[in-house]
């Protein structure tokens, strides 16, 4: 196969049959190009979709207390269940393996002012991992950290709109605002894609709110972010276990529908994943269809080429060519042409996709179209293999024909 002589014979053939070479190469290059572009655009569509649906975190489980509706273990019904720091600790220890982030939340509403301006805002006491579960993006300064929580620091992080209301263009970092008769130090500003309400929030360490404002260890709710890798079924299972654990701990009747609330986006996530999957299947279907069209195209050309060359094969056999040498000649030529032109198609497709970038986002909802290089190379190899098979079968038949019949072929 790597004999230099054979290659020069093949190059000679290719050189003297430019139209045939061009047609075969063009079919393959076009097939791969269309495959890459379609696949890339499909992926771009998926990107937009993913972006849109993962705006809020889907792997959050919101846990909050309530009032029981059934008596249990000596307690009467309508008992108020409240979560506290101890529950937070227990969950963190017991479910550590599944947890990406864990934060409690205590929310109050209050007036906050700076210089002459003041306004009513939601003030939430949270932990550091709130940034992740709320998908807050820092604009300035820093977020609440473990040290703030440990020392009950009166530090606050402002939503983008809070900062705009109170500070305008002024740099807020290190400045103090007043609220509830106390001074609070601004340590950061965040933005959030979730809408204006999400940016009219002030975050402070939950311990600070617990100590200063209420002097309790109670929390309103606990937000748990599980590892996405556990999947939908894992999330449902985790939710069940969490519920069981907390109900047991808080002495709530296991069959009581109230008393403890767990809310998660697992089901939504599942639906979205299904939709995403459907989109994926469509992309794969279209891709395979394109590839198939390319394969059929190259097969047709190979059949035609071999028909056209039957007489030449007869001559070659009359002067001493063995059937296998003819089959190899055809195969090598076809593999060579498909490889080169497949690569060209691949290259043009990838360059075209990367040149698109975000230009189609507004009108066609296509973000960053790309094609996984492995997929594209696999597609090219498939086309080469099928091109070779498509060439092999008629070549084998042509090589078997008695030379005298091939020679009489007009």
């Amino acid at each position: 196969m790597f004999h230099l002589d054979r290659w020069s014979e093949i190059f000679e053939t290719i050189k003297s049959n430019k139209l045939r070479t061009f047609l075969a190469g063009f079919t393959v290059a076009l097939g791969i190009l269309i495959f890459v572009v379609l696949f890339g655009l499909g992926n771009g569509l998926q990107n937009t979709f993913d972006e849109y649906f993962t705006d809020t975190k889907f792997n959050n489980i919101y846990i909050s207390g309530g009032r029981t509706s059934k008596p249990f273990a000596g307690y009467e019904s309508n008992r108020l269940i409240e979560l506290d720091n101890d529950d937070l600790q227990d969950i963190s220890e017991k479910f550590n393996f599944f947890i990406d982030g864990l934060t409690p939340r205590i929310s109050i509403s209050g007036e906050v002012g700076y210089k002459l301006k003041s306004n009513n805002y939601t003030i939430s006491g949270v932990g550091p991992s709130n940034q992740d579960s709320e998908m807050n993006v820092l604009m300035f300064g820093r977020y609440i950290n473990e040290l703030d929580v440990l020392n009950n620091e009166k530090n606050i992080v402002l939503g983008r709109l809070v900062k705009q209301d109170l500070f305008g263009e002024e740099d807020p970092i290190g400045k103090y605002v007043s609220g509830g008769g106390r001074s609070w130090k601004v340590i950061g500003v965040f933005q959030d894609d979730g809408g204006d309400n999400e940016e009219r929030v002030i975050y402070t360490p939950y311990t600070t709110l617990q100590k200063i404002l209420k002097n309790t260890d109670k929390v309103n709710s606990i937000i748990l972010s599980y590892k996405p890798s556990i999947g939908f079924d894992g999330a449902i299972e985790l939710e069940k276990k969490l519920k069981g654990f907390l109900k047991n701990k808080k002495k709530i009747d296991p069959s009581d529908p109230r008393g403890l609330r767990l809310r998660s986006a697992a089901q939504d996530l599942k639906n979205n994943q299904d939709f995403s999957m459907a989109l994926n299947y469509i992309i794969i279907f279209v891709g395979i269809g394109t590839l198939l069209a390319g394969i059929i195209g190259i097969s047709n050309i190979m059949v035609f080429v071999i028909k056209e060359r039957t007489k030449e094969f007869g001559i070659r056999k009359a002067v001493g060519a063995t059937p296998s040498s003819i089959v190899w000649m055809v195969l090598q030529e076809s593999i060579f042409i498909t490889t080169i032109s497949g690569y060209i198609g691949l290259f043009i497709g990838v360059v075209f996709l990367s040149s698109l970038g975000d230009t189609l986002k507004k009108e066609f909802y296509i973000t960053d179209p790309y094609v996984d290089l492995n997929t594209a190379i696999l597609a090219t190899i498939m086309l080469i293999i099928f091109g070779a098979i498509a060439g092999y079968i008629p070549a084998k038949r042509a090589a078997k024909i008695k030379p005298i019949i091939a020679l009489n072929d007009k």
Partner: protein
Amino acid sequence: MIKIKNLHKSYKMGKNSLHVLKGLDLEIQEGELVAIMGSSGSGKSTLLNIIGMLDNHDHGTYELDKVIIEKMDETKAAKYRNKFLGFVFQSFNLINYKNALENVILPLYYQGLTKKMREEKALKYLDDVGLKQWASHLPNELSGGQKQRVAIARAMVSEPKVLLADEPTGALDSNTSKEVMNLIQKINGAGKTILVVTHEHDISQMCSRVVKLKDGVIVEDKKINQKKAL
């Protein structure tokens, strides 16, 4: 050189079978120039194709240079053809996208000679037929006589035991025919065994022996006084 005994060949034409060769016996010595004559359908081309291993025979024995040729696979037949036989066809059968030299090189390519050796040898044979300066021309740039001379060079370049020519002058005018026959006589003069299939009386007279076929059997086989082509 060639020994044929009781050779039979029939072709299937749909349900019917056409019996073309009906028990031929033929013996050809080394260095003979034999004309095989007969009207169309007499089986002369079929006989040549069998001798040339381009086609298989059904019954009988065929011996070429003391090797018994039986039904063999194509790979083996191809090697035998390359080693023992040279072909010249009525329609030249040059590869149209290869130039004269490349066409002559082809049998040497299948012999596995190095590129340099191939080119030297092919050029020498092209020179022998007087077409050295036409080496880089494609077949469609050559006249019929030139094409046939290229074909003869191609047939001779592998130094075969036997040269087989199927109506070599069939597509040529009488002057060109004589030139080609002259070349064939020269090659025969150098000791090569040559079989020429023809239906032209003139051409057959330029050979040293004439074998006449009719309906698949030999009806006449005699040595004649060879005429010079030119």
